[in-house]
């Protein structure tokens, strides 16, 4: 990851793809405003920008999913209109989507066959997939069904699927957001090998460090405009972030945890959860505690029990036993979400749409959903609409939620704005304990910064925050202590300032034993001391 990219070659040859003056409007909204862009053969080029900056719109036009309103595209020096994804693939453009476009019910080979022209037999195709797996060191079993694969494996299937089409340009939309640091390193090695073989890669990411280590040049989009193509290695992460946001980006100062041990506000002791379906991860003997004034980060790769843990913490799933989950000394093991909220807990689950918020309801109604049991919004069974609207408006004001209209539907907000709303809705209640899963998943840099600051302020004010996150940068940016969840077992929390990302990454990948877990008695005196 630290090999410095070679300097840009002088662009004597015609670029592989050149876009000039691309415009795209959706109604009144201009998604792409005079975007020009060039990528050379075999080049790894980053496309940077906040959510809504027009990155997806742009690559969708390159991939033929959308048509530009104005401007021209040149492919190998020839002006061209890319009419459809099929056309794009025929030209040699492949794309790996952020949300995988795989068919869950089908096998790997069937999935790949669907993306390829011609009538190759599945047996021949499976053989080619195996060959490619060995050639590039990408482990993929052609006979496996997609829904049995981990996210990282699914991504490899996507990549193999693209590569079998022998593309000369590979577009990757936020490919590392689901990978461990080690998997990311492997992916980068594979991508570099492609690049050496002449495949150009257009790499969309918001992880600035990655962009600096992998790509040679970066093009930054802001509000639909190209604000410059830069030599990625020559800019610092902060400079790149500022180009994206268009202003200065503040740093987050994580306050050192006080030396004294403040009160435990939230405690989990020996949480067991048997699997409810064949694919659920059983939780085995989870124990951890969050103290007043700290953010406890729970790192781990998706599918290692995060969803199951979150449900157990919120009370969507309740287990048996006594004193398994305690809030400020009170046993809430048998209580559901509403009772737990009454005890002073606030939750934000991972999925914004449909879990944290109801997309088809207004913000006021969504505000009511988590506060009806807390008083102030419901009187004698009748909803106080004015109070709900006022609450939603106050949250929107305090948490910088940009509203397209007064009291809009939740579905009308962009991902970052809705996330600010659902986080703000809980934090504004000043919960004693705040539990959040993936607080900044798929959210732009500005919103992510805002949300992280809000969580730090909440902790400084004396609450305990438990943050389940797959984003190691985030864990290291704001959590005071970090525990790793792997295969339904949690490690002893470690002081974040005293561990390296590599250690945490190894724990996440399961290549290092989770010391002390699940036996906490021994672990208490472990490496945290």
């Amino acid at each position, binding site marked *: 990851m630290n090999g410095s990219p070679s300097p840009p070659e002088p662009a004597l040859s015609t670029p592989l793809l050149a876009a000039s003056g691309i415009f795209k409007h959706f109604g009144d909204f201009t998604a792409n405003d005079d975007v020009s862009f060039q990528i050379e053969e075999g080049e790894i080029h980053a496309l940077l920008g906040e959510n809504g900056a027009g990155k997806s719109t742009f690559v969708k036009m390159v991939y033929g999913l959308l048509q530009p309103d104005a401007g021209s595209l040149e492919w190998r020096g020839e002006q061209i209109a890319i009419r459809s*994804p099929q056309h794009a693939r025929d030209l040699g453009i492949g794309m790996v989507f952020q949300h995988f476009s795989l*068919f*869950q019910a089908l096998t790997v080979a069937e999935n790949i066959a669907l993306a390829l022209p011609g009538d190759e037999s599945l047996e021949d195709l499976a053989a080619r997939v195996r060959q490619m797996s060995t050639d590039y060191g990408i482990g993929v079993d052609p006979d496996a069904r997609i829904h049995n694969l981990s996210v990282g494996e699914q991504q490899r299937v996507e990549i193999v699927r693209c590569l079998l089409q022998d593309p000369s340009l590979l577009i990757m939309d936020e490919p590392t957001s689901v990978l461990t640091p080690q998997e990311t390193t492997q992916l980068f090695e594979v991508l570099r090998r492609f690049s050496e073989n002449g495949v150009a890669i257009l790499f969309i990411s918001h992880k600035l460090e990655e962009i600096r280590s992998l790509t040679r040049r970066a093009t930054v989009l802001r509000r639909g405009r190209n604000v410059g193509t830069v030599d990625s290695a020559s800019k610092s992460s902060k400079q790149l972030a500022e180009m994206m946001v268009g202003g200065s980006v503040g740093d987050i100062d994580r306050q050192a945890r006080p030396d004294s041990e403040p009160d435990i506000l939230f405690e989990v002791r020996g949480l067991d959860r048997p699997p409810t379906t064949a694919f659920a991860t059983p939780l085995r003997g989870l124990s951890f505690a969050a103290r007043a004034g700290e953010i406890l980060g729970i790192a781990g790769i998706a599918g290692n029990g995060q969803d199951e843990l979150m449900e157990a913490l919120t009370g969507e799933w309740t287990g048996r036993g006594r004193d398994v989950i305690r809030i400020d000394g009170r046993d809430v093991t048998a209580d559901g979400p509403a009772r737990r909220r009454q005890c002073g807990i606030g939750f934000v689950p991972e999925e914004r749409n449909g879990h944290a918020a109801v997309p088809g309801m207004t913000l006021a109604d969504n505000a009511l959903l988590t506060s009806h049991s807390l008083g102030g919004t419901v009187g004698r069974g009748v909803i106080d609409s004015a109070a709900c609207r006022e609450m939603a408006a106050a949250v929107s004001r305090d948490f910088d939620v940009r509203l397209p209209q007064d009291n809009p539907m939740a579905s009308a907000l962009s991902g970052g704005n809705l996330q600010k709303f659902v986080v703000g809705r809980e934090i504004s209640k000043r919960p004693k304990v705040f539990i959040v899963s993936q607080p900044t998943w798929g959210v732009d840099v500005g919103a992510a910064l805002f949300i992280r600051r809000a969580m730090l302020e909440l902790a400084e004010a004396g609450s305990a925050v438990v943050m389940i996150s797959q984003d190691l940068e985030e864990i290291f940016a704001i959590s005071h202590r970090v525990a790793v969840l792997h295969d339904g077992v949690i490690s002893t929390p470690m002081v974040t300032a005293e561990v390296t990302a590599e250690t945490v990454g190894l724990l996440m990948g399961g290549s290092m034993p989770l010391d002390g877990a699940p036996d906490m008695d021994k672990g208490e005196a472990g490496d945290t001391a």
Partner: protein
Amino acid sequence: MLEDLILTVLMTSVPLVYAATGELIVERSGVLNLGVEGMMLMGAVAAFGVAMVSGSLVLGVFAGAVAGMLTAGLFGILVLGFATNQVATGLALTIFGTGLSGLVGAPLIGKAIGGLPQISLPVLSDLPVVGKLVFSHDLMAYGAVVMVALVAWFLKRTRGGLVLRAIGDNHDSAHALGYPVLGVRFMAVLFGGMMAGLGGAYLPLMLTPHWAEGMTAGRGWISLALVVFASWMPWRVLVGALIFGGITIMQLAGQAEGWTVPSQFLSMLPYLATIIVLVLISRNRDFALANSPACLGRAFHAGK
């Protein structure tokens, strides 16, 4: 006696096999067409009317298929072209088919025609027991087995079948890969209509050679249940149709024999069996994910 009973069971299950195999393809493409009953009735009345006027059973069968297809085409235009709610539109289609077939068929009530000739395969049909049960049926009964085999082969072995399954599993991804989601679904809906029409045609042409209003008597609904019972796998449709057909005949036989089991209980059995299968399927997530179409009943909007 027993041979006759089994023959009746086989004949009762033929329309179920047609309608359910057609609906299986429709549902595998991600569309839920609850209008099977209506399409069968349209097929039945068209088949009977044409057969009577022309005197040709073959033309009757053909007319049944076309009528089912046209009815399904209406459903397809509404559901795929205008993205209407599939459940509501399907229910409306059943009501529409029931009403229109009753209106068109009014002058046909009380008329009778002769059935399709049975094809007795030489030598084979002379075998004891097996000969009569397996090798002496009408052409449509053989056709039903052939259609199941074709559909099974199509889904499992051909690229078209793969594309159809892919569209039923994830229409957005299929669209992103450049497959014509709505086009494939429309073809599937038409095929489903044709098969329902054929199943309907079998009733007045073969099973009871006359026309009566609403003569499908819930067979469309049983076919829908049968698709779920078969967990969207073609060969299981054949097995399920025999079981469901057997239950139907047991009701009649039971009444004739004066059984104490109420016939309502027996007519309930196919649905009960379907519910049990649904419960079993949802317990096995792996199986459910691999076979039930994930996009079933969801409208597709391109460019989202």
